[in-house]
């Protein structure tokens, strides 16, 4: 994913041309299009815009190109319906964002987010954005840890900033299940904000820093709680030729295995499970969180959108920063599914989604997966 003189490297330029000639067969899955009704706000429109940008002297440094690049949560809802050879829709989106960055046109709020992430701060609010120091929370988690354990926990920015309770809950669940774990010595952002805003050099630098951080531990497994971080470290980094010196797994998978050893003390309750995009569509982690909840004694009900058709909470892709109105539209769609499910609790495998859903549906409590598991073993 590098930029060329025209703004997109060969294979992504071809992908843009192909996507722009497609009959828009993914359009029914695109939340942005559903919310705005604007024909250009779908993968086809974004690709067509990229083709235009490649043919014009202004390239990707136009308001249209910026809009096309960022009116998207990178939720990948368009991926399952797409069968065009050579087109991977999120890859194309990230390539276009890299071209916008190369053109010096990245929205300022995105550059600020990357700067905060590089400084080791985590998002504690998105609308308006706010940043915090995760060190005290990591210290709390470390109090439950076993130094030098082969399993290393890496909570990631989303969990640390948006759902601190879930970070310590994960530690308590693992401890209760007798699973020894260590905790990263300090917080380092994996580089997801840099990927989100097209700063590919920073992605490489930040991934390398995380690799060095992991190298300092004796771990063979790296459990990553924020789904987008788990995606970047476990899926994207290897594809970029960057090795993380431990086997990366989403913490939700780690918790599912541990939950089999739990002895829930609370009676079964019915909950609905929301699949976060970066777990379900980007990493195919669908069954494990449900299995974990069932192990903990919950009855799991399904939302209308689930697995590959899950509805995005709107927290991904920098959308709340660049297009907060559209992001709120995403949340309304998901909230509709939650309300329709008729449950009093919704559980999700993502701290950012949990934070988004908090208070979104009257009378429905929200738990991140680790919080829900911890609640059953600590009840009574």
């Amino acid at each position, binding site marked *: 994913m590098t930029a060329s003189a025209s703004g997109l490297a060969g294979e992504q330029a071809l992908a843009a041309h192909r996507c722009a*000639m497609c*009959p*828009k067969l993914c359009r*029914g899955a695109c939340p942005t299009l559903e919310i705005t009704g*604007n*024909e250009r706000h779908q993968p086809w*429109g974004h690709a067509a815009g990229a083709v235009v940008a490649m043919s014009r002297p202004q390239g990707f440094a136009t308001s249209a190109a910026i809009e096309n690049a960022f009116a998207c949560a990178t939720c990948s809802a368009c991926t399952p319906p*797409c069968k065009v050879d*050579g087109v991977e829709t999120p890859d194309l989106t990230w390539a276009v964002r890299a071209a916008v960055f190369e053109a010096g046109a990245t929205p300022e709020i995105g550059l600020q987010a990357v700067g905060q992430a590089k400084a080791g701060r985590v998002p504690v609010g998105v609308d308006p954005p706010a940043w915090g120091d995760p060190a005290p929370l990591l210290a709390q988690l470390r109090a439950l840890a076993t130094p030098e354990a082969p399993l290393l926990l890496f909570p990631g920015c989303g969990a640390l900033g948006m759902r601190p309770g879930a970070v310590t809950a994960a530690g308590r669940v693992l401890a209760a299940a007798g699973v020894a774990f260590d905790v990263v010595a300090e917080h380092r952002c994996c580089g997801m904000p840099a990927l989100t805003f097209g700063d590919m050099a920073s992605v490489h630098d930040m991934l390398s820093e995380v690799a060095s951080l992991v190298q300092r531990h004796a771990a063979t497994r790296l459990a990553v709680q924020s789904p987008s971080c788990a995606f970047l470290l476990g899926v994207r980094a290897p594809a970029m030729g960057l090795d993380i010196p431990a086997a990366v797994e989403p913490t939700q998978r780690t918790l599912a295995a541990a939950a089999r050893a739990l002895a829930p003390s609370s009676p079964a309750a019915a909950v609905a499970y929301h699949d976060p995009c970066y777990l379900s569509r980007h990493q195919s982690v669908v069954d494990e969180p449900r299995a974990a909840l069932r192990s903990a004694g919950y009855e799991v009900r399904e939302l209308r959108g689930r697995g590959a058709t899950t509805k995005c909470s709107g927290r991904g892709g920098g959308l709340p920063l660049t297009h907060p109105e559209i992001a709120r539209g995403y949340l309304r769609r998901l909230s509709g599914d939650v309300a329709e499910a008729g449950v009093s609790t919704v559980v999700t495998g993502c701290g950012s989604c949990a934070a988004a859903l908090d208070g979104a549906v009257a009378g429905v409590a929200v738990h991140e997966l680790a919080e829900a598991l911890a609640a059953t073993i600590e009840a009574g």
Partner: protein
Amino acid sequence: MSLAAGVIDRLRAIAGEGAVSVDAADRAAVAHDLWPRALIAERQGSSTPPPDCVVWPANRTEVNAIYRLCVETGTPVVPFGAGTGVCGASIAVRGGVVLDTKRMAAILAWDLDSGYVRVQPGILGIHLEEACLERGWTTGHYPSSLPCSTVGGFLATRSAGQLSTRYGRIDDMVAGLDVVLPDGTEVSLAAQPAAGAGPDLRRLFLGSEGCFGLIVEATLRLHRVPERRVDVAALFGSFHEGIAAAREILHTGLRPSLLRLYDPDDSALQASHLGVGEGSGALFLASCEGRATVAQAEASTLIEVCRENGARIIAPAAVATWYSRRYDIGFQQAKYLPVPGSVLDTIEVAAPWSRLGALYDAVKERLRERLVVLCHLSHGYVDGACLYFTFAGMGGDEETALPLHEELWETVMAATFESGGTIAHHHGAGLARAPYLATELGPGGVETLRRIKAALDPAGVANPGKWGLDR
């Protein structure tokens, strides 16, 4: 054209500030549909001129006010659903306002005693079908564009789905219709199983492609989801043998939902996609559906008729594979159309059984030296069928692409007229067929259409420049 003074402000007053855009990128996104001629031109850097603005009305009241404003100011107004038509019907050839229906996409009411659903035009076909299936019903309307086209588009172009032999085309599914005429007159034709008082005005508006105003609501007939589907696959020695069998199937009174017969060239391609390794010939795919006993009996009879007409019955698994790939044709277009020099298009025509074979022969013979020509029969009727041709040329240079595309259309239209067929089955007329509509309808027919257009749209603002009426 440039808009008259004050039009944008007045549109904003009608639909709201955020529902009107003059942004260049927003206008470019609705500048053309998927008419291959426009796509080839786009590839060559000749973008279709965009409209002057886009407006997204939220309801019929706003639609009404927009049309009246456009009549008052002489502003063209062109409806736009998903922009996936293939004949250029939604291209605003005279500029003006593109009226995007995507904010009118609601399901308004269910009457499942009667098997009706009332919808707004902007709803995507697949979203409507999913809602029906949740309730145990189906529209039975499965065009290959179902994931990317709207009900309004179906109605405006008179589309037909892959299962039309059993469920009919969209014309047959419309029980009621509400239309806003350009002068603001509202036509409300209630849903009825059959309405025999005078001419059927519902049909007047089907296929009108925005030239008579906007269809703002439609009540569609639904069918119970069938209990069972029984698939049949067969090979015929030739396309003509297969045509004879298809005719016999329809004449026998059978109504398979799926009825597809591929000519040998298309069969070779389909066989590789569908995993058919049982010899060459004309591949035939069919499904019978309904109550299990009825579906099974119908399929058994269909097999008998096929055998009587020389078919070799093969494993039906190919049909299930076909269903799993039923919307995939568009992905091939995405792959090949960006290639410089390429020409890719589909043309669907129809003819009575007595003339169908001659029509097929004429098109194949005239174009096979220039292009890859694939053909399948689908959409069977008691009296005839649709022939769906796919044309692909990958070897030409970019300068010859548009001339070749024009020659392709001229040839197919001429062959269709000479063979006694009709030049369109379910893609509509738009710009692609405008040069041929007068011949299709005849002098009296085209004069009738001209007078209807003049009566309903005397200001000439409703999608002007289409059908060749006002050139």
